[in-house]
């Protein structure tokens, strides 16, 4: 059937509807990609989109949650704001997990959602849900537009709030009557650069900086804790310059990974529950901690009563509510990590800490012997997750962008992938959303088409957003999907194994054949089980032109070590 063509470009018209104002606002913001799913209450906006299809690339996901994670992947890979369209009611409620995820992980996102006409608000109309209330707890800002003339200002404010300060998700709800209505005034989009009561200013002073410099210059055992804020601020080089000038070891949080090459001599590993032995133990030996863009998450600190009590803490952080929330900062430095590091480094003396670095090396040797050697070169018939990640690392020269889901495979990918390039490990860290990785990988590839994107996914996670294989197939997004399939909810099983007397309560999964499922979606797939077949299979995946799924059958009951059990201190980490 022939598609009817609209006569005139909407931008040429003197009139403009609220729906067209949404699209014109997006174009004015330079938005190139939208992840969305239409429905009744957003139909006028989708109708306007029809005319803007040449300017804006819309990707039709298969579930609204997928749209949010795709937008997150897009935002993190591209550094731009991720944009989502969804309808009212169930469309909007399906966004909630992704909004909470983006809020926790500081991902800039603007979601435009439909709403029933303003006259129907509060009447339990078809597909009406109280999204204003529901979203209040999971967004950085949300707003309901009921007047077409408000659209442009609301959109401009949304983008500013989403990307400024500590980035986060924003929901703009537009009632259906406001979408249909003609603007009374000419459309005018004025980007917002400040708001009356919302402050993104830096709050650090020369004295703060000098205090931080004095602590660092006098430190014998300094340690840098690099978090998500390093990458968000684009402060990787500035951090490296500071670390190299002062010869300070750098440990990364889960979100900080890849801000420094894992091959750098000053990189000492990952912090946290399943991080590396040396940086966790030595957190409690350091005399000065320089925390950069990280928020002392409980997975990083372990038992707070025994966390770094000996250390002076310098905390570089953009969100005032994070300062002194968990760990008291001796020197708080409020502001953008890049701006602060660039001012701090010139105040620091060139220094060296060979004895201190040697302590990391000694502990790392213990981890190598007790954990990594067995994990990477196992005496087991079945493949282990670490050896799969190692092969992936070798074949991608450590230059892929790894999008990990949530669970054992997430920790294994974080621990064993040799990150050589920046912005190369994205996962759902704060909320721990299973099902994040498949749509996030699709979004990441859209946002960074020149990067090799590999999603590392567990069999449990995969089945939470598996329908996005259809999106990947429809748009031929060449992402590589590696399912580490152990027929278990592995991390829950590990905890039941270690802390619940091995009582395996509902963690065994009888999975469908993922290889056949993938092929049915139109995506090439391969199953690999034997060690000798693994390198060839990974190579085939990486060399395929389109999307590819590699179903890797791994050891069913493998545990992730080291491990900091709940309630243990950072120096109470278990190696076995």
């Amino acid at each position, binding site marked *: 059937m022939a598609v009817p063509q609209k006569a005139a470009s909407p931008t040429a018209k003197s009139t403009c509807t609220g729906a067209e104002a949404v699209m014109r606002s997006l174009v004015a913001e330079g938005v190139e990609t939208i992840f969305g799913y239409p429905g009744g209450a957003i139909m006028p906006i989708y109708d306007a989109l029809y005319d803007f299809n040449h300017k804006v690339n819309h990707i039709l996901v298969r579930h609204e949650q997928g749209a949010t994670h795709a937008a997150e992947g897009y935002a993190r890979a591209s550094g731009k704001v991720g944009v989502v369209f969804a309808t009212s009611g169930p469309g909007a409620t399906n966004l909630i997990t992704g909004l909470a995820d983006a809020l926790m992980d500081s991902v800039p996102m603007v979601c435009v959602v439909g709403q029933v006409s303003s006259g129907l608000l509060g009447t339990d109309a078809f597909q009406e849900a109280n999204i204003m*209330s529901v979203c209040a707890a999971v967004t950085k800002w949300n707003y*309901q537009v009921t007047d077409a003339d408000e659209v442009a200002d609301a959109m401009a404010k949304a983008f500013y709030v989403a990307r400024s300060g500590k980035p986060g998700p924003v929901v703009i709800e537009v009632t259906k009557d406001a979408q249909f209505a003609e603007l009374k005034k000419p459309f005018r989009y004025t980007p917002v650069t400040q708001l*009356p*009561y*919302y402050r993104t200013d830096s709050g650090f002073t020369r004295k703060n900086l000098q205090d931080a410099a004095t602590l660092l210059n006098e430190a014998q055992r300094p340690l840098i804790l690099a978090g998500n804020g390093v990458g968000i601020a684009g402060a990787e080089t500035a951090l490296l310059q500071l670390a190299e000038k002062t010869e300070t070891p750098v440990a990364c949080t889960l979100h900080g990974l890849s801000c420094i090459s894992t091959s750098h001599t000053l990189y000492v590993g990952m912090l946290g529950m399943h991080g590396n032995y040396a940086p966790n133990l030595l957190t409690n030996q350091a005399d000065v901690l320089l925390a950069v863009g990280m928020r002392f998450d409980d997975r990083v600190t372990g038992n707070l009563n025994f966390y770094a009590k000996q250390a002076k803490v310098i905390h570089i952080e953009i969100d005032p*509510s994070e300062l002194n*929330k968990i760990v008291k900062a001796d020197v708080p430095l409020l502001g953008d990590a890049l701006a602060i590091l660039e001012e701090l480094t010139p105040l620091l003396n060139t220094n060296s800490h060979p004895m201190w670095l040697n302590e990391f090396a000694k502990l790392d040797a213990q981890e190598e012997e007790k954990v990594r050697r067995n994990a990477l070169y196992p005496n087991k018939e079945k493949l282990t997750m670490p050896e799969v990640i190692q092969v992936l690392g070798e074949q991608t020269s450590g230059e892929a962008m790894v999008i990990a889901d949530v669970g054992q495979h997430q920790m294994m990918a974080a621990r064993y992938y040799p990150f050589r390039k920046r912005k190369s490990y994205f996962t759902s860290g704060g909320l721990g959303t299973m099902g994040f990785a498949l749509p996030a990988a699709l979004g990441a590839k859209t946002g960074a088409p020149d990067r090799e994107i590999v999603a590392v996914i567990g069999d449990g996670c995969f089945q939470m957003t598996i329908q996005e294989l259809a999106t990947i197939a429809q748009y031929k997004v060449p992402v590589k999907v590696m399912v580490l399939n152990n027929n278990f909810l592995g991390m829950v099983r590990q905890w039941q194994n270690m802390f619940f007397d091995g009582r395996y309560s509902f963690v065994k999964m009888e999975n469908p054949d993922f290889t056949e499922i993938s092929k049915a979606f139109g995506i090439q797939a391969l199953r690999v089980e034997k060690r000798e077949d693994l390198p060839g299979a990974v190579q085939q995946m990486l060399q395929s032109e389109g999307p590819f799924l590699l179903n890797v059958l791994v050891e069913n009951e493998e545990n992730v070590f080291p491990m900091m059990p709940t309630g243990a201190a950072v120096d109470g980490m278990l190696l076995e």
Partner: protein
Amino acid sequence: MQTLKIYTENKIGVLEKVTTVFTRNRVNIMTLNLRANALQELSLISVSADISQELAQKVIPQLKRIIEVADAKLKEGSKL
């Protein structure tokens, strides 16, 4: 008992965003008063609650993080 004074933009839904911060920190509100100023641009929300010093120091920055909140502080005379 402490009283917090929260100055906000006078917009639909802002009160809910403010009370959400108390809810997630498990603070039980004893009295709550909202009054818009003469021009109706700003509201003053006064909240009394039995809240520890430690928790108040956590709650106030979280209130200030709300985009529409202009300021949040303990009422003078409230002891911390």
